[in-house]
């Protein structure tokens, strides 16, 4: 979608046109769910949080600044909503059946993933969120920044530190892990 088309869509959504709002927010529902699930680890809670977030977005889209990223704005609402209703922390539960799912990969990668999983689980929640937004959802850092509440430069610095912390886990099989 071109910038002009996106701006037009946002303008129509801000004027209360529901179809335009749905076109803007619809594609963000599933990634929003993943963010919420990462915070609450409960499917129903996560779906509830995304639903409430969409309702909040609908009510407040008039306050969204033209130059802001709709994705960042909506994901921030999802994060706030999820934290409000959170019952548990990120990765607070390891479910054995899920480990079987991991096992469809080759053994070396599975072992590495489990180590990484443990390491990721030990990170602070906001650091996991940062990683998830950037590596799980492929958001550029300038869009990650407002969601995690940091400046773009601060986000980059924080990401560097988090990756540095994880590096020993990844370094165990460094030969097969392409560090850029």
């Amino acid at each position, binding site marked *: 979608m071109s910038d002009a088309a996106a701006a037009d869509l946002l303008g129509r959504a801000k004027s*209360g046109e529901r179809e335009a709002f749905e076109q803007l927010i619809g594609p963000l*529902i*599933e990634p929003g769910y993943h963010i919420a699930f990462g915070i609450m680890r409960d499917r129903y809670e996560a*779906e509830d949080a995304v639903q409430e977030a969409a309702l909040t977005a*609908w009510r407040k889209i008039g306050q969204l600044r033209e130059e802001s990223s709709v994705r960042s704005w909506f994901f921030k609402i999802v994060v706030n909503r999820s934290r409000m209703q959170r019952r548990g922390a990120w990765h607070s539960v390891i479910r054995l059946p899920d480990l079987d799912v991991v096992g469809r*990969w080759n053994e070396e990668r599975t072992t590495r993933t489990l180590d*990484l999983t443990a390491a990721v689980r030990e990170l602070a929640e906001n650091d996991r969120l940062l990683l998830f937004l950037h590596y799980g959802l492929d958001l550029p850092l300038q869009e990650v920044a407002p969601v995690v509440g940091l400046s773009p430069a601060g986000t980059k610095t924080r990401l560097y530190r988090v990756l*540095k912390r994880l590096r020993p886990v990844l370094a165990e099989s460094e030969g097969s892990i392409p560090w850029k």
Partner: protein
Amino acid sequence: MEIGPDKPALRDALYEGFEPPSAELRERVLASLPVAAAPAPSLVAHIIHWLQAHWPALTLGGGGAVAVAVVISVILNQSAPSPPPTIEVYAAYADTIRSGAPAAPPPSPWMGSPGVAFVGVGPDFDAGAIRIENRSGTSVTIDRVTVDSGGQRFDIWQPGLKIAPHSTLILTQTAVLSRAPLTTNFDTSEANPSGCQPAGAIPIVHVSVNGTVRSYRDVNRVLNTGGLDAGNCGGAESHGWERLPA
């Protein structure tokens, strides 16, 4: 120097244990949005502009103009309340597995009836039930339904349930806590005081639509089976639909 990890491995770790959302999540979320348009975002801006254009002599700083505009917009919004939706609320009790007695049919309409959106889990039921009829020709989105009975608040249904025009929504147990004996998360008869004398208070059903909550009194105590736990007093608990007054 920019560093980056093996993205697939990190992605696997980040998604560890994730459960996929419901297939219809997107449609459900979007359908749950209120039918009414979002509050006009530019109303305050329009009023500020109007004030500045028509009232230049008024010495209002930026903050003052905004404050005046907000007050006017609130008054305008309050002066045009949306009409209340045309809904009717009913209560019933479904007790389909009473031991020692033939299985009682659930109330009618029920799951699978024409025009019924059913929110509940079976196949066996020991639970109160709420039925909301949309008598209007437009969809109604129910923000939330809660039930107060026996000192407990039951808040077990997802918000934002949409009822199509001239259609029905039925809400009942959403979880089975044990199979034998059957225990559910909307067993409103269990909320009564112990004993076989009617002692339970009148249950109240709160239905929120468009931000307005209306309370419906279950004056005949259908939900709490007459104010006693009939299932433990030798009787069946099933009861057909009764309309609740607001």
